[in-house]
Each structure stands twice: as structure tokens, then as C-alpha cells.
């Protein structure tokens, strides 16, 4: 039980088909089809309100899709019969606002769900937590409370918290948008190293440099639809659609 099974590589990590999401009268996602293969880094860019965060949050069902299909490692996560908590434990999620647990030390932030969800022993959980803190360069903050960390440190601790669950894939929801500019680099470095280690990643971001250098695939969304997708270098250098071109002209 404590040894997680390795990620499956014979099926796509994430498979989204015909996904719609409506908040009241507001249609946020209008038919999304997207596949993330195991080991791939897919970056999602687009203007605010384009639905990219909602799309990401649908993948672990923090948002309930209105219709469509989402498969994670071949499992239909919209099937009411599945154990959603089990699926979520295999999907790491990193939020724009970090969402570390303020009443727990960094170490307890990293161990609580290992122990309560995966049933790991205290010793094992702490060992894994230490290893992941070292990975994100926060070994010296192990006993600190989140309030005593800078934004960049908090985000790296949050990444380490997700990694401690030994997830098969990681979702990043604008992980650097709430950070002071000088703290963005450290977080991106951690994410880059993670991508290099072969982690499957879906990243909603405004960091075009990161998308170009680290991403295997770039998805441009606007108005609830995928307008364009492809190799990041190609899309960024030669956008085929007017809307992509207009957006890139503004941010680059």
C-alpha cells in the first residue's frame, strides 16, 4: 500500500474529449479536446477569462464539468462509481495562491496527506518529505510555519507537498502569478528540474519563456476554446491564427 504503482505509460495521462463547463449562463469551456501523453509537459496559455484555469481544475474535478469526458490514465473520472480521492492522490495540484496549511509546519504540510491518505508510516512519510524539501531547496525550512516563508518558498514547499504524494502527474495553475518578479526564477527552476525528471505536467502559465524551453506542447486558449496547439517554438514564432498572434503581440 505504501509503494505506489508506477505511472502507466500505455495510455495517455490525461484525455479530454468534448468538455463543456457552464457557470450559470456563462459558458466557460466550449468543447475542449486535449491529450497529455505520459511524460509530456503541456503548457496552456491564453488571456484571462479564456477558461484555462477552469480546464485544469476539471482534470481533478475541483470543478464539475457540465458535459464531456475526462480520462486520467484511462480511468473515466466523471464516472460516479470511481473513488475520486484515489484518483486525486495520483494527481499533484499546485495553486496560484500556494494554499499551504497555515496551522501546520512545513514538514507536517508534507506528511499529513501521506499519512492520512496513503497510510504511510510517520518515519517513511518524513523521509519522503525531507527528500522532496531538498529537491526544492528548502531543507532548512522544515520546521517553519508557512507564514514565515516568502511567496517563492511557499510555492516551492507546495510543490514539494504535492511531490510527496508520489503523483503520476502534476497540474500547475498559474504557479508564479502571485509571486514577486525576483522570486519567480526559483519556482521555475524547480519546475524545469521536475520536467527533466520525466514528470507529466500540465501547466497554465503566463511564462512564455518557460513554455518555450520546457514545454513539449503549447496550447493557446481563448473564449473557452483551444484556438491553436503545437510545438511551443513553432506556435510562439509562427502563430497561425489571428487571435494567437494578437495575444502574443501583447505579452511577448
Amino acid at each position, binding site marked *: 500500500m505504501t509503494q505506489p504503482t508506477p505511472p502507466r505509460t500505455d495510455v495517455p495521462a490525461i484525455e479530454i474529449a468534448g468538455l463543456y463547463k457552464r457557470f450559470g449562463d456563462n459558458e466557460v469551456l466550449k468543447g475542449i479536446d486535449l491529450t497529455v501523453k505520459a511524460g509530456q509537459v503541456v503548457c496552456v496559455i491564453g488571456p484571462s477569462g479564456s477558461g484555462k484555469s477552469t480546464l485544469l481544475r476539471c482534470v481533478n474535478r475541483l470543478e464539475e464539468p457540465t458535459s464531456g469526458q475526462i480520462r486520467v490514465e484511462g480511468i473515466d473520472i466523471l464516472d460516479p462509481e470511481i473513488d475520486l*480521492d*484515489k484518483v*486525486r492522490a495520483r494527481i499533484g*495540484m499546485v*495553486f496560484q495562491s500556494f*494554499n499551504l496549511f497555515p496551522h501546520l509546519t512545513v514538514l507536517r504540510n508534507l506528511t499529513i*496527506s501521506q499519512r492520512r491518505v496513503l497510510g504511510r508510516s510517520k518515519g517513511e512519510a518524513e523521509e519522503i518529505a525531507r527528500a522532496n524539501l531538498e529537491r526544492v531547496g528548502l531543507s532548512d525550512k522544515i520546521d517553519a*510555519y508557512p*507564514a514565515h516563508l516568502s511567496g517563492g518558498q511557499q510555492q516551492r514547499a507546495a510543490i514539494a507537498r504535492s511531490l510527496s504524494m508520489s503523483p503520476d502527474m502534476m497540474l500547475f495553475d498559474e504557479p508564479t502569478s502571485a509571486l514577486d518578479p525576483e522570486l519567480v526564477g526559483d519556482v521555475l527552476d524547480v519546475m524545469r528540474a521536475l520536467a527533466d525528471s520525466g514528470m507529466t505536467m500540465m501547466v497554465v502559465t503566463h511564462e512564455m519563456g518557460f513554455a518555450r524551453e520546457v514545454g513539449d506542447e503549447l496550447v493557446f486558449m481563448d473564449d473557452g476554446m483551444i484556438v491553436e496547439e503545437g510545438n511551443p517554438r513553432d506556435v510562439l514564432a509562427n502563430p497561425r491564427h489571428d487571435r494567437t498572434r494578437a495575444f502574443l503581440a501583447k505579452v511577448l
Partner: protein
Amino acid sequence: MRRTTRRRLTRGAMYALFVAAIGLIAMAADWERLRRVFFQLDVAREQFPEIVTIAAKNTVLFTVISFSGGLVLGVTLALMKLSPVLPYRWLATVYIEVFRGLPALLTIFGIAYVLPIAFGVRAPGGSVGAGLVALIMVAGAYIAEIVRAGIQGVPKGQSEAARSLGMSPARTMFFIVLPQAFRIVIPPITNEFVLLVKDTSLLFIAGSTLLTKEITTFSRDAVSTSGNATPLVMGGMLYLLITIPLTRLVAVLERRMAKTR
């Protein structure tokens, strides 16, 4: 005249008025009579040790019992009120509205006298037991609203993060949301505790024996047997001895908590 001069003169006049008023009261007051009615040493001495070993002890004991019971009931009601199951929400809402709306005195009276007569139901522990059950029911309603507000005061991202890590709704509530909610509610819930210290004085309506008197009942009875108001002053001082350290403690806790948030 310059503005600073004028301000200084006004302030001087205010001090003078204050001193004059105090002086007037001090001169007009019948000190001997005041001392005789409110501060008689031999009457005061007669109250010991019972005023501490029975009255103060009971006030603290009854407060702790009704607060603990009210806390359990209140958290349960708060969780019911936030439940996705509609009947639970209704039930909690009706309960909270009723017992916050009724005077505590009436609830105590109802549980102690009306319930046994109407249904033959008797609370355990005699009349004090009945009174305590009523206080728990009332405290539960108030604490429920405090705890609900506390739970809703925890940012949504906290439960989203916990759920994303695979925690079930129950684990998320108990390990992530409730601990943070309790920090938020410490000031209002201490306020509720202080209110309960005073509300134990309402237990007299349920009736009390020699051993179950709390401070107010004890002082009142001592006033009528001694024909002197000294026990009342002593009772009042005992209440303050209990409540003031509590409110001070909260201030310290709040300050310490502000550091880790």
C-alpha cells in the same frame, strides 16, 4: 488666543470638573453607612469557606459543563448547517433560530418543570441537571453560529488543496478546516464562555440545594440571612476574578496566533 492654549485650557477645565465631582461625591457619601451595608468584615468572614468551596466551585463547574456540552452540540449543529443534505440543514437552522430566540431563563424553566410534567421526562442529575441540559442547549445554538462562521472564514483554497491531495471531505474538515476555524473563533467563543459564566446564575430558576448553589444564588441567600449586602459585593468580585483573567488570556492567545498566521 492661540489654538494650543485654548486646547490646554479646555483640558484643564475637564480635569477640574472631574476632581470636583469626585470630591463632591466623597463629601456627600455616608461612608460609615456604605461600609456597614456593603463591606462588613464579620459578615464577609461568615461566608468562608463556602462561598469559594461551594459557590465559586459550582459556578466554574457549571460553566465548564455547559460550555463543553455546548461546544460538542455547537460543532455538530454547525456541520449539519453546512451539510449537503437538506433535512440536516433545515433541522440545524430551526434549532439554532429557536434556541437563540428564546430567553435562556424560559428554556431552563421549560426543561426543569414543563418537560417532566408534560411528558414525564426528567433530565439526569435532578434540578441542576435539568438546568445544565437547558444551558447546554442554549450555548449549543450560539456556538453553532460562531463555529459556522469560523468554518466559512477558512479560505476555500485550503479545502481545495486538501481534496487535491486525496483527502476525503471528512478528513479535510477535521485535519485542515476545523483547526483553522477554531483559531478564527477563539475570540467570539471566549466571549460566549464569559456569557456562560454569568448565565449559570439563571440556574436558580430550576431550584438548588445547599450543595448546588452557584455564586449568585449563594450571595442572594446570604444577603437575606444576614440582612446585609456584603455577600453581594463578594459575589460580584468573584465573578470578576473569573472573567477578567479569561478575557486577558484571550488577548494573549490572539497575539500569539497572529504570529503564526
